[in-house]
């Protein structure tokens, strides 16, 4: 399965809906998308991972890279994920302390901390 990406704007946030598998082959597409958004001035991103079937460390690296980029503009990168097998990867790498992880897009869009 390939990676699917779509973006939409909700208020001052840009929601990136990701579907499929994020691995060493597909992660560059996600990286390009995040870089493009930041270059276009979208600094408050919500990455919706509910449609993601597989995530590996390459994908984590891209998300960390995205976070670094938005933080350089005092922005934010929030994740939406309820899938235990995906959350587990964030836990074992300690990245649950780095990313705000929300249970719904609405919650992520409303978050302001």
């Amino acid at each position: 399965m390939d990676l699917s990406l779509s973006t939409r704007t909700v208020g001052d946030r840009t929601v990136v809906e990701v579907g499929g598998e994020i691995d060493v082959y597909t992660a560059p597409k996600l990286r390009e998308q995040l870089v493009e958004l930041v270059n276009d001035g979208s600094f408050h991103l919500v990455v919706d991972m509910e449609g993601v079937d597989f995530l590996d460390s390459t994908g984590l690296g891209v998300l960390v890279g995205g976070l670094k980029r938005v933080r350089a503009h005092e922005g934010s990168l929030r994740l939406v994920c309820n899938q235990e097998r995906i959350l587990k990867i964030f836990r074992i790498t300690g990245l649950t302390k780095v990313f705000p992880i929300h249970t719904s897009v609405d919650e992520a869009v409303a978050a302001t901390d």
Partner: protein
Amino acid sequence: MATVELRFSALPEHVRTARLVAAAVARRAGVDEAVLDEVRLAVGEACTRAVGLHQNSGVLAPVRVSLIEEEKQFSIEVGDEAPHAVPGDKASGAGGDADVDIEEDDMGLAVISGLVDDVEVSTGANGGLIRMSWPTTPPTAVLP
């Protein structure tokens, strides 16, 4: 000899194939269904790392994956032929994307060691090997 052996060109697009084959053979070998996601992720991480090492050092040889069914365990060996593939070696980092690659390599090993209890990583002048094992349930014990 391994139950199934796989050799693939060191290209990112083949890592998914390795994951699918490894998970299929692990299932057949009797690895618990709940652990198959971990097998899939761990073998993907090991293959991704091997592909990166081959590409970074210009090695043209394929990445080797051995799927080994044993009496009470299932093992996966992922071998690379990259020279001086010392885990955590940051000396080659030249800034920019190289740093990102190295961070990802370290993160791959971190994921593997977080996921798999029984893992050995060995490296030498002729390449490296990651060996991971999981217990299997004998077919007789599967009966309700």
